[in-house]
């Protein structure tokens, strides 16, 4: 079964590590944003735009979207290689799985480009 070639880190150990690091980054971002919304219940556009256009926040958001991309790549790869298999759905499984994997990679890349466009377009 050809699976390793489409995994992000090319090895299970590396994928595991990337999954953990990206999880910590996303959790930090989530905790920060939720805390910020609680601290600023009457948030207006000017304040929100000022926060998101500051360099530290842009870097934090950028690292978060890159983490989302890596995390989604590894997670979707795991799901696809578990269920879209020759044993479960027959001989066309590999072609179907590669199709979905390429689609996933395309959507993930689009998300990263979109996020950069949003963050640097403020």
């Amino acid at each position, binding site marked *: *079964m050809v699976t390793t070639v489409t995994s992000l880190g090319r090895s299970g150990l590396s994928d595991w590590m990337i999954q*953990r690091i990206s*999880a*910590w980054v*996303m*959790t930090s971002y*989530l905790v920060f944003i939720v805390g910020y919304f609680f601290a600023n219940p009457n948030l207006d*556009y*000017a304040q*929100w*735009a000022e926060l*998101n256009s500051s360099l530290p926040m842009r870097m934090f958001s950028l690292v978060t979207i890159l983490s*989302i991309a890596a995390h*989604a790549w590894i*997670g*979707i790869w795991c*799901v696809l290689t578990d269920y879209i298999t*020759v*044993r479960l759905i027959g001989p066309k499984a590999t072609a179907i799985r590669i199709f979905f994997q390429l689609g*996933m990679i395309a*959507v993930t890349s689009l*998300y990263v480009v*979109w*996020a950069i466009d*949003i*963050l640097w*377009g*403020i």
Partner: protein
Amino acid sequence: MDNKRPVNLDIGTIKLPITSYVSILHRVSGVILFFAVAIFLWMLDSSLASEESFNQLADSLNNPLCQFIIWGSLAALAYHAIAGIRHLVMDFGFGEDSFQSGRSSARVAVVVAIVVIALITWWII
């Protein structure tokens, strides 16, 4: 892999422990989140593009369909994050010594997720 080997695991006939459901839901919520990222980016985009689009986003939060989509996305995010934090805690060696402790932490994750999703529901309505 030799796929001629017989497979005896018929999942439908096996009574699964809570840890299995927590794990399967973690996967399901992860796949939902893959699509929900588009919703979150759309909200980030609208909130930052201009003051006008910021106000439009605030208005659309009163639309029931928008509310439902955002609720679903946030609920999936809450569940996935909580079940994920359970794994991060286990990485440090807590609660991974026995099946019993895994079952306890799975129960805690479910209860915390229900409370957080209830808070999200209350916040959106």
